[in-house]
């Protein structure tokens, strides 16, 4: 609402009559100290929509986490009851353990693969352009579809292959093994998210001037030395971006897990997002709102920590 004033002033400008070029320039310079009103045009709609459809519902949800609200009808104020129950609920704790572990492993796997591919593709590899398009394909397929396809591969194709070559450990689908099922989720999530990370790394790598490599080569640096002393330091900003976005994404893992294991076998692969959603269908709305609130805080903390830990050497060259 406060934006009304500068906006109105801007539109009023031509009205006072034939302003001289000089006064117009003068006004422009003066307004440099304030924010250019045009920017509000860009920001306000998004801000309003974001507030109405994300912030406000989130606040309502946080409020209801202190009640026994069902989604309809009467409710009572419970104080911190839901939160107290959360910390002693083994299935909730297990879902946090799984989600954090999964996010950690997957983000490392994804970054290593994406970086290796990006380095390969920016060097003079044959068919680099064609390969690049191939690697990006997973990005355009929706997660649930990917999960169902891999579900079929893991349940049928892989065991059949393993049986035909007599490879014992894989003859039973890994989706049915509580100790291995998480691996399938890591594999599929990585398969799906490597392309995004790959694009960011490719952009980062092409921003490194070639003369640095040429100069270092003259000084006798080999490929490994170049990677460690030039490439990695110069793209550290991109690594941070990818890691932060990656962890954030994996913490919210939902569709891939639903399509692959449905949280099973047992509850071995139940992510936090899945338990939260279970609350909506299971009449546990307020309790899972408390869970969602805690999860939100944890996610924010992790992101802030990541940014803080890497601040100082990031993004400078990006």
């Amino acid at each position, binding site marked *: 609402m406060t934006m009304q004033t500068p906006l109105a002033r801007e539109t009023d400008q031509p009205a006072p009559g034939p302003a001289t070029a000089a006064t117009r320039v003068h006004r422009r310079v003066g307004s440099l100290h304030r924010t250019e009103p045009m920017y509000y045009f860009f920001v306000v709609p998004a801000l309003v929509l974001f507030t109405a459809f994300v912030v406000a519902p989130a606040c309502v949800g946080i409020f209801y986490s202190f009640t*026994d609200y*069902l*989604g*309809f*009808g*009467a409710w009572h104020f*419970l104080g911190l*009851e*839901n939160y*107290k*129950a959360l910390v*002693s*609920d*083994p*299935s909730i704790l297990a879902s946090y353990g799984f989600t954090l572990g999964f996010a950690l492993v997957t983000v490392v796997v994804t970054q290593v693969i994406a970086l290796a591919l990006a380095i390969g593709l920016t060097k003079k590899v044959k068919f680099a352009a064609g390969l690049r398009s191939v690697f990006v394909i997973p990005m355009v397929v929706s997660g649930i579809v990917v999960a169902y396809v891999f579900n079929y591969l*893991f*349940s049928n194709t892989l*065991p059949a292959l393993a049986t035909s070559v007599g490879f014992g450990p894989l003859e*039973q*689908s890994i*989706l*049915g*093994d*509580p100790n291995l099922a998480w691996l399938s989720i890591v594999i599929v999530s990585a398969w799906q998210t490597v392309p995004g990370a790959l694009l960011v790394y490719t952009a980062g790598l092409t921003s490194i001037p070639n003369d640095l490599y040429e100069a270092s080569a003259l000084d006798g640096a080999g490929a490994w030395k170049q990677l460690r002393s030039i490439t990695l330091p110069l793209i550290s900003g991109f690594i941070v971006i990818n890691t932060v976005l990656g962890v954030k994404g994996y913490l919210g893992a939902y569709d891939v897990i*639903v399509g692959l294991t*449905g*949280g*099973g*076998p*047992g*509850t*071995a692969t*139940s992510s936090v997002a*899945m338990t939260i*959603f*279970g*609350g*909506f*269908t*299971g*009449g*546990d709305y*307020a*309790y899972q709102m408390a869970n969602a609130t805690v999860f939100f805080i944890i996610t924010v903390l992790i992101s802030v920590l990541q940014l803080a830990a890497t601040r100082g050497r990031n993004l400078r060259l990006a």
Partner: protein
Amino acid sequence: MVGSRTGSIGTTLGRRGFLAGAAGGIALGTLALAGCATPGQAAAGGTTLRFYEQKQEVIAYFDELLRRFEREHAGVSVVHDSTTAIAPQFVRGQPADVGCFNDNLELARYVERGVLRDLSDLPSADRIRPSIAELGDQYAKYPGRVSVLPYSLAAAGVIYNKKIFADHGLPVPTTWHEFVDVCTELQKAGITPVYATDRDTWTLWQGLFDYSVGSLVDTGEFFRKMKAIGPDVGPDSEVSFEQTFAVPMERAKTISSFFNPDHATRSYADGNLAFGQGKAAMYLQGPWALGQIALIDDKLEVGTFALPVSNDPADRKARVNVDLGLWIPEASAHVDDARDLVEFLMQDEVIDAYNSDNLAYSTRKGAPAQTDERLAGLQQYVDDAAFYQGAGTFIPTSIPLGNYLQSAIRSGDFTSMLRRLDADWRRLAGRSATV
């Protein structure tokens, strides 16, 4: 996966049928439009009723009924909609005028809070068989009210392949020992005795769990006591999962040893396919699977029997659920017309025709038998009211029973699962969860 624990014909298929759901969505869109276009509404001053119904397979069936209702009631038009989610309509404060849903723990939340109108003074309420009328009360009852009128009763048991049984000279088992003998014989002959589909966890509780418990434990009574004991449930309380379900879970463990070797990774669709292809002798599924099996092989001769889990044949019971129940919300603005619609649907010939056409049982007194050969084996149990509502349907979805069963079948440790159920029950009761 996600979804309410209902085991109804409608939701089981709807939940699973990704495409079916999409098709249903399109269908209901067109139907809603068709509803708006009826002349009834065009007439000035006409009433528009909204009818929500859960089963996608019977959208066309109900649509025809509703058009008939419109013809008989000038000035009233009915918008027909289908959804499996009850909550959104109530959250928006705009529930349907008449709901036609699975009567289960989910609907019980609405019954309990008194948002459904009393229907006890409708003439049709007195025509319902008392043994069926009280089923819904096992989940929840609002004092002094009949909140839901049971419309369709589904009965489930063990679906078996008659040809395999005949080829091996096997009788339909009537006691637990006979059942184990049959399974052992089949196994010797190299035939999978029981096809299980662990991947879709609901199939585990609705089949293995519910059938193992139902004939040994009075589920309605058990859960009434469990609710009363609440946070104090444990090995020493009057009833508990660990104590009361110990023997049933021994049965479940034995049955699971007769599963197909790849049960851990098979889904419900895989199960229907395999059973339809004659790859297994028995299948712990309800009538909703019969239609799917017929899609694979409509010549396959199948029958159904109630799983015997004790050595007294008289203990056998069938698993039932109120697949559809009619209700009118307090918030409905057209109560009189809504009641007319309920009465219309509850007419003897309408309710009987619906149920005989849809592999279910009419809920009124003196209803004719279900004539489908595949369900003949369960008729006696329905007639004698020798039935129970599955134990799994009493357990709130906050407790992932199906997932626990997956682990228990894998490890063979059902006792830990029962202890965990007790612990979860205590926790839910302790934090006054609204289930």
